[in-house]
């Protein structure tokens, strides 16, 4: 039961193409994040969804209704801005009541709804303040209450946390997640912060250069990235370029500089391939570990963070490798010769 369907959207600014054939199916009540670096087209896509930008090609449907050409004011989409965009000449109450008055809701229903929304964001005692008398986090919560007050079909969030400091950001993420569960509204969030995306979203669309690289759950994106960009953008990763070959029996062998292993390659065709290993899947030891792929390495340095240490290593081939190591009994010193090992099951083929 798809609610919002984005089909083959292209967007040109003059000769520059900002979006290439973007398609997404977003279910009703889903929390989706558009994640990507700046210039990836995520904000352009959000503006198109909000109706502030036109499309050069493609269409958007909401519950089967074509809304591609609809003006922003006719879409019934809530919008939360990076800079809050609260009306400075109105109180918190008037700000939240604004979309309700636009909809000619009766006066007492407006009052009830405003209360309800303020309770939802836990700001009931600030009802008669002006936005300038609130902190950034409070203003953003008022903006959220205002954008949800009219029960929009979809809530669009344009980097809502980027103006807030780290601690507030984490609190607001938690709150957003809860509000999403309470209301069941479809949320579409835009961010360049992969942690924020992973914490909150049901599914994440990773965008790069105007294209959607992959649209999947945080788990799938992290463990089975479909593209090298996704592997590198989400979390830390070690990528080994190499070649995949098939034996007569059908089992696959991956060869790269200094390593060779059998692995489950599914139905992948032989040829050039990249192998990704996450740093937490690499074990460091002073002797080769049995049943694992062992790579002799030299410790270049480490970052100790109490629970664990992140090592920067240099392999015999000259490649860099990063690995998390338990740091309970001290860290490996700089210049130490170690064996970095990983299990083929933990490695993922990309591309």
């Amino acid at each position, binding site marked *: 039961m798809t609610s919002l369907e984005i089909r083959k959207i292209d967007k040109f600014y003059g000769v520059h193409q900002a979006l290439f054939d973007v398609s997404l199916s977003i279910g009703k009540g889903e929390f989706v994040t558009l994640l990507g670096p700046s210039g990836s087209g995520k904000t352009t896509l959000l503006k198109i969804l909000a109706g502030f930008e036109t499309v050069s090609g493609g269409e958007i449907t909401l519950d089967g209704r074509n809304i591609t050409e609809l003006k922003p004011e006719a879409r019934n989409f809530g919008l939360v801005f990076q800079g809050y965009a609260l009306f400075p000449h109105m109180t918190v109450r008037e700000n939240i009541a604004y979309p309700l008055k*636009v909809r000619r809701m009766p006066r007492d229903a407006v009052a009830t709804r405003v209360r309800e929304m303020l309770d939802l964001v836990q700001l009931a005692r600030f009802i008669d303040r002006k936005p300038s008398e609130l902190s950034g986090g409070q203003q953003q919560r008022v*903006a959220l209450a205002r954008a949800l007050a009219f029960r929009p079909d979809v809530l669009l969030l344009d980097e809502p946390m980027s103006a807030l400091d780290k601690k507030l950001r984490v609190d607001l993420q938690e709150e957003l997640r809860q509000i999403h569960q309470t209301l069941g509204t479809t949320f579409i969030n835009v961010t360049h912060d992969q942690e924020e995306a992973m914490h909150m979203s049901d599914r994440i669309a990773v965008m790069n250069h105007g294209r959607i690289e992959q649209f999947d759950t945080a788990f799938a994106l992290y463990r089975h990235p479909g593209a090298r960009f996704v592997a590198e953008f989400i979390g830390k990763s070690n990528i080994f370029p190499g070649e995949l070959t098939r034996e007569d029996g059908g089992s696959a062998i991956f060869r790269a500089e200094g390593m060779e292993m059998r692995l489950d390659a599914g139905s992948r065709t032989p040829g050039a391939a990249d192998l990704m290993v996450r740093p937490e899947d690499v074990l460091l030891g002073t002797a080769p570990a049995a049943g694992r792929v062992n790579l002799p390495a030299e410790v270049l340095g480490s970052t100790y963070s109490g629970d664990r240490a992140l090592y920067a290593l240099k392999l015999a081939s000259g490649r860099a490798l990063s690995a998390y190591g338990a740091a309970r009994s001290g860290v490996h010193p700089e210049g130490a010769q170690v064996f970095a090992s990983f299990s083929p099951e933990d490695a993922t083929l990309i591309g």
Partner: protein
Amino acid sequence: MSKVVYWVSLSFAFFFLAAPLLIVLPLAFNDSSFLTYPMEGFTFRWFGVFFDTPPWLSSLANSFKVALGTTLAALLIGGLAAMGVMLLGRWGRIVMSALFVSPLVIPSVVLGVAMAYAFGRAGWGGGYLSLVFAHTILAAPLVFLAVTTSLMGLDPELDRAAASMGASRWRRFHTVTLPLAMPGFATGALFAFITSFDEVVVALFLSTPQTQTLPITLFSSLRDRLEPTIVVVALLLSIVSCLFILALNRLQRRGAGR
């Protein structure tokens, strides 16, 4: 160094701007019909003369009528122009702004001659309407500039936010844009009023004895009979100006407070 500059500019401001005014203003209370020091005694007599002798009060009333008319017309024209220009693209904005501001750079003598001629031809020279019209041309650019400045300071996301909540273009304009641009309109209105209220050159060309404004009466009585009433007028005008400056100051502080 900066201290020297500060004191030099301060003393210049005092001796050339403030001192002449301060020297002349006490003469409004001088108990003599000549504008001379030392003062011969303290009196409010000349205020009485101002309020009783014919041309003064009626020309004050004329000034107010013309200035109010000008303020309204300039607000309408300058304000509409500013809002229209904001909707244009970059180049359109530059060209149209230059056009709307251009009356400021035309010498008022030229305007005065042109208008006296044109209105005379049209057959409504000398009336209030012609004065209001001429002053509006001078004042509208000031309103235009003040309103443009406050509109430019508005966050464009506010309009988008209102749109996303379902507000139509007109509703967004009168519930969000207009209230937030209000300080610009108020500043423009004050400027327009002052501009008209103490405008001499164009009024000299256009006013008749019936529509004579206060600055013109002041100017002609300066030539005819030099008596302390002139200083009374000067004092009253200064007070009006001071009140306006105070009002402007308040407006700016309110604008900055947001």
